[in-house]
């Protein structure tokens, strides 16, 4: 591999990390806020698929990608509201409910999305950060989804808010000890439902980024499990919003490395590269999970640490 090709591959992977990582970022942030309040929403995979469809529909019928983005967020919030309300009932298991939401979201999206496979919708604009460069590779890698900077800001704001604002502390309290929250007079149910809905809205932005930016069309194979990976990312990121950002970029990059190497002529073992994101998850979980500090940072009310 010559230095030129290596440079192109590296730039390609960096660009790919942002392109492929955007949905991971939004879904993992959405899951992060939900889990901080002590609830798991596995249904975000369904939310992602459904909001991608709704976002595409909104942009297609209104002619504006931003209305599409809102439609995606709103539809994500709606599905999450269903999850939040159902889980507030006594003895409803949030994992089982999450799986039901996942199936419902995908099924509804496939059903309602039938007439949307063929059309093209207006796309979310790119932000060109690479204008200074003469290399088309660099320019392409640095034309960024306009939602992505918003995701970065959101991650920073969330990290700050969890530590420094009244609302952030309330969410964490509800997530860490429902009894303490009740004793203090906070409605656990209301906070959890609100957090779940907010999480659904944020995950919905990930759906918009799929169907309105990259790859930029509605198709039934669009998500292919990215929502589930993003839920796992939250555990990997130890429930820290800023870590979600790095994790999303890492997984985006891992997904981009296979095609980048193949197009540079290094074709061997592409099945291995295709499996890279999953192998990476396993590896990181094995390395970081020492018996001494199992799942440090996990909200105490989550089913897994209760």
């Amino acid at each position, binding site marked *: 591999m010559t230095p030129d090709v290596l440079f192109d591959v590296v730039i390609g992977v960096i660009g790919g990390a942002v392109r492929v990582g955007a949905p991971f970022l939004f879904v993992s942030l959405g899951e992060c806020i939900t889990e901080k309040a002590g609830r798991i929403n596995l249904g975000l995979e369904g939310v992602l698929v459904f909001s991608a469809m709704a976002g595409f529909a909104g942009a297609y019928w209104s002619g504006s990608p931003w209305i599409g983005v809102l439609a995606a967020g709103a539809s994500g919030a709606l599905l999450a509201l269903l999850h939040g309300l159902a889980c507030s009932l006594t003895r409803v298991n949030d994992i089982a409910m999450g799986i039901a939401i996942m199936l419902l979201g995908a099924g509804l999206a*496939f059903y309602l999305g039938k007439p949307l496979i063929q059309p093209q919708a207006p796309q979310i604009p790119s932000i060109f950060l690479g204008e200074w460069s003469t290399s088309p590779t660099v320019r392409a890698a640095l034309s960024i989804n306009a939602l992505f900077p918003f995701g970065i800001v959101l991650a920073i704001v969330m990290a700050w808010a969890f530590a420094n604002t009244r609302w952030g502390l309330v969410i964490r309290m509800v997530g860490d000890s429902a009894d303490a929250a009740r004793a203090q007079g906070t409605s656990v149910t209301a906070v959890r439902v609100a957090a779940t809905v907010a999480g659904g809205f944020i995950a919905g932005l990930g759906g918009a980024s799929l169907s309105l930016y990259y*790859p930029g*069309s509605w*198709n039934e*194979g669009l998500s292919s499990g990215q929502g589930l990976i993003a839920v796992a990312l939250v555990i990997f990121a130890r429930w820290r919003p800023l870590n979600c950002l790095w994790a999303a970029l890492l997984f985006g990059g891992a997904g981009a490395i296979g*095609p980048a190497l193949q*197009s540079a002529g290094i*074709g061997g073992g592409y*099945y291995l590269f*295709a499996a890279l994101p999953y192998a990476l998850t396993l590896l990181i979980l094995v390395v970081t999970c020492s018996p001494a500090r199992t799942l440090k940072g996990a909200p105490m009310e989550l089913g897994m640490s209760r």
Partner: protein
Amino acid sequence: MYMWNRRDWLRATGALGAGALALPWSRLALGQAPITIGFIYVGPRDDFGYNQAHAEAVAEIKKLPGIKAVEEENVPETQSVQKSMQGMISQDGATLLFPTSFGYFDPHMLAVAAKNSNVRFAHCGGMWTEGKHPKNTGSFFGYIDEGQYLNGVVAGHMSKSKKIGFVAAKPIPQVLRNINAFTMGARSVDPKITTSVVFTGEWSMPVKEAEATNSLADQGVDVFTMHVDGPKVVVETAAKRNAMVCGYHASQAKLAPKAYLTGAEWNWSSAYRAIIDAARTGKPHPNFVRGGLKEGFIKTSAYGPSVSEAARKNADAIKARMMSGKFDIFAGEIKDNTGKVVIAKGAVQKQTDLELEKMGYLVEGVIGKV
């Protein structure tokens, strides 16, 4: 003033008669019991691709009298296709099934066929072998590599960077054959051209396909083609990167009118008709149906506005030779991309040659590994 003479009269009645002969369907339908036919697709019916090509032909077949078509889409290549097939047989009374995806053949279709010896199975793309597979099964396919060769010819004329790209799903013989035909078509114009291949590993994986297209564009590829189930994402992404694109399966010209050069399209209705006809008249099941441009199994998309005059002329000339059966794509000497001779000098593998359906190499000029 023009008067009818006897010659004109004969000509007119002759034309009428020929017209009547050309419509055997309407006559057959009168004397035949209705038939229920099941069609199974691996993806959605309107994916601008493989499944749409099938669904378009089914829509045509449905118009014929006495035919009831049952369709099911999004059936994965797993146990569930066996359930779909058995369901169509037991519940809908289908006596002829068209499982259209490659992975349905072995073991799924063979398993259901063994249990239902009175039902006919026509699989698209599989390798039916005399003696190995039961008589009530069969396969049909088109030599779409002819279309990909013509894609390559046009790409060869239009590429400025001399690097062309192929986004492929899986390294199975049909896909390799398309990659090779595309490459040889382009190199017949300019032997300096290379084709870079990216395998995504799945038939439909939109994010991977977009990523493959982007990374190929990063490497300077300026003309794309593909072999995935839904070419929409590749076409749109290539157009966004200001690259040109040759279509596959169906016409994607609408998606990127400026970037679209030409395309290799299926035309399944003739194959369907032959198989359905045999089923209705009680003739033996056609186990092995193949055809290319000449037989009307495939067609090419109309040239896009940017295609140069020279490219059109050259491609049209080769197409005419294909139509007359005088053109062989796989004529020796052909080397693979490791330098090994795969078809010896002077040897010719005709389109019907079964060796071509077992292809396991990439020809010289392709950058990639199987």
